[in-house]
């Protein structure tokens, strides 16, 4: 502990109630209580990632139920009401339980390491942010066992389905969303404070790695968007229980307003789930192209532009609510405008790879797959953004195909890429490359068999969220289900590869896992120590480790 503590630092110490004397220069506390009490960013990152992984498996199991029911036309396995509970909880668990916590986990592990900080700015709050999650997740899942069943109104919980016509358990759903929101907001505050406050003194904002930049911007999106979601569910709560009529026309309210409020949150939310992915890919591609990231500052500006625009395009989810032509045109043009900064990013990734000395280790495979498949999702997004075309596409499987390309082959693939990229540094051991490559091809083929035919189903008019369908949709649904089961199985293999790496992986030797990787996170030894950066890195180290400035002629 330095003796130059200023007033402000005292203040911070008070805020986080964290005394940095007692967890200094020694390893983790023995026993299970370590995980409950921990304020160490690496421990908390690990907790987040395992939590996200278990939610991924549960949400995945629900998806298997959905695909099994849709394997053939007709009602075979489950009741329609249960089918609806599956689609609803699948969406909610994946968005709020898997993707978002996984990114927060990566932020916890990586941000302090990448900016040369000792820990997060508010370690005690960090502990709370995590420990709220298992309770929220359990409460959400427990609704399935309640009388009347769990929520069955879709992850978008439109009123009045979620108010007047919803099951009793909806109040538990509402409370769970409140808790999830609290967790995300606290996590976001922590990220902002860490990046702005704890950076190595010699690291300027434009020295920061792109993962840190994208997370900083994501955190701002979170503190603006999540409270609006909290507002929406609070209105639902009072409409349901306290006689207000926010969304009830008989009391002077308006159900369409629910959709405005929800999507004012919802569209920024989809960017919350993709901006950190952009950051991850921007770290991995330079490593395996052995070239600095092309167009670093344009990446930063593009991310900020996407974030700002994301607050003014929500109407593209509502083209069919009876919006006047002026509104449709505005939301259509604003939506299409977003593809400009998105295109800049794709261009920069491709240009980084251009004439690089490419090698295709597993993280790079996932990153390249991300670039290609996310772009497909972006293109279908553009089609949906065209108001007159959306009349045909809306609420069909085309939308389902779109958002699974951006969320599964986009957000989720980037998370898998990040785990393969950083896991060797987290645990000092290497995974089995051969198995990992087999797993990659298995997943990549099956995921396309799963989601690509859904484009055709949607164009042919198959509605989403329906347990039965007419005969002309049978073939593509069967193909999609087969792809789905194969993709589901691939996660068993992924679990094996990761556990095998942690338990029996070959120790990483000779400095860093990837010989061409740059970044402060690689300077702390083969295996990250429990405490890092007791002294902040020097300006020279920061520049030498930059993954976006050219190092040519320096050897």
């Amino acid at each position, binding site marked *: 502990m330095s003796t130059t503590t200023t007033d402000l630092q005292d203040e911070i110490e008070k805020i986080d109630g964290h005394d940095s004397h007692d967890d200094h220069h020694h390893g983790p506390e023995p026993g299970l209580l370590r995980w409950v009490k921990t304020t160490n960013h690496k421990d908390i990152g690990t907790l987040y990632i395992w939590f996200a992984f278990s939610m991924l498996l549960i949400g995945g199991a629900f998806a298997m139920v959905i695909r099994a029911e849709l394997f053939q036309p007709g009602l075979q396995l489950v009741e329609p009401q249960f089918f609806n509970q599956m689609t609803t909880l699948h969406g909610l668990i994946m968005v709020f339980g898997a993707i978002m916590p996984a990114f927060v986990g990566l932020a916890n592990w990586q941000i302090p390491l990448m900016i*040369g*900080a000792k820990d997060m700015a508010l370690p005690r709050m960090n502990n709370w942010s995590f420990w709220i999650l298992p309770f929220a997740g359990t409460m959400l899942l427990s609704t399935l066992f309640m009388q009347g069943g769990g929520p069955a109104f879709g992850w978008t919980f439109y009123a009045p389905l979620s108010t007047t016509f919803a099951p009793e358990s909806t109040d538990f759903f509402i409370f769970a969303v409140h808790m999830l929101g609290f967790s995300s907001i606290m996590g976001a505050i922590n990220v902002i404070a860490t990046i*702005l*406050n704890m950076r190595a003194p010699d690291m300027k904002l434009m020295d920061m790695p792109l993962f840190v930049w994208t997370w900083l911007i994501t955190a701002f999106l979170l503190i603006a*968007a999540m*409270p609006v979601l909290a507002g929406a569910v609070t209105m639902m709560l009072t409409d349901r229980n306290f006689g207000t009529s926010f969304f*009830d026309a008989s009391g002077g309210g308006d159900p369409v307003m629910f959709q405005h409020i929800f999507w004012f949150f919802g569209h920024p939310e989809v960017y919350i789930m993709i901006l950190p992915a952009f950051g991850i890919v921007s770290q991995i591609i330079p490593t395996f192209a052995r070239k600095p990231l092309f167009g670093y500052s344009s990446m930063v500006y593009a991310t900020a532009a996407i974030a700002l625009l994301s607050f003014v395009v929500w109407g593209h989810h509502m083209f069919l609510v009876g*919006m006047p032509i002026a509104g449709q045109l505005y939301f259509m043009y604003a939506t299409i405008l977003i593809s400009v900064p998105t295109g800049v990013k794709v261009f920069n990734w491709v240009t980084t790879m251009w004439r690089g000395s490419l090698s295709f280790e597993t993280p790079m495979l996932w990153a390249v797959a991300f670039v290609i498949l996310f772009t497909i999702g972006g293109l279908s997004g553009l089609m949906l953004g065209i108001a007159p075309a959306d009349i045909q596409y809306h609420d069909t499987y085309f939308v389902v195909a779109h958002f699974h390309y951006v969320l599964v082959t986009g957000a989720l693939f980037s998370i898998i890429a990040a785990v393969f990229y950083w896991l060797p540094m987290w645990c000092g051991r290497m995974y089995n490359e051969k198995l990992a490559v087999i797993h990659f091809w298995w997943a990549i083929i099956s995921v396309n068999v799963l989601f690509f035919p859904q484009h055709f189903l949607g164009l042919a008019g198959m509605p989403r969220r329906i347990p039965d369908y007419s005969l002309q949709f049978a073939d593509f649904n069967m193909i999609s289900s087969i792809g789905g089961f194969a993709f589901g199985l691939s996660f068993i293999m992924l679990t094996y590869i990761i556990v095998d790496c942690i338990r029996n992986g070959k120790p990483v030797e000779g400095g860093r896992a990837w010989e061409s990787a740059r970044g402060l996170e690689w300077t702390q030894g083969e295996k990250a120590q429990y405490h890092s950066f007791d*002294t902040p890195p020097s300006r020279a180290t920061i520049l030498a480790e930059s993954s976006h400035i050219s190092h040519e002629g320096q050897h």
Partner: protein
Amino acid sequence: MNNRNSNISKAFWAKLFITPVLFFAFAFAMVPLYDIFCEITGLNGKTSSATYAAETRTIDTSRKVTVDFTSFSNPGFPVKFYPMVKKLEVIPGKLYTMTYYAENRSDTKIVGQAIPSVAPGLAASYFKKLECFCFNQQTFEPKVPIEMPVRFFVDSDLDKNIKNITLSYNFLKVKNVTKEVAKL
């Protein structure tokens, strides 16, 4: 901790925690803002609830506009309710009166509120009502049929391309009965 930049002020911490609170409040602010926005722009097919003085009209005999009347009772609202005329050809600017018929088929008194809506949305602000049963809550005594008038005109400034307007009413059971109606 020696690697903290100390250039972050207390004010910044305050902002960081207040921002989410403000956005929470913003979600609630969207409720009135949304109504004001619809009122000003006439979007969402919400007709203005203001009554109009009859003098401000100019009559445009060069064209006719067809007005369709429809009605809809919410589930759980046991009042039979329909327009006495389904369709009317109107001259923009001229005053018309038409009536809706309603009968409470249940055995209890019911208080309802009609919500008007005009399609296309762009026509909403040109469809002006001088008198309407939708301005107040209506009380329906059991088994008593009533006729409810609407006095309206279509503003002659209405876009020439709009030749057809639909006026629809949706009757809902009232949750919060206003004081004047409750006394009846």
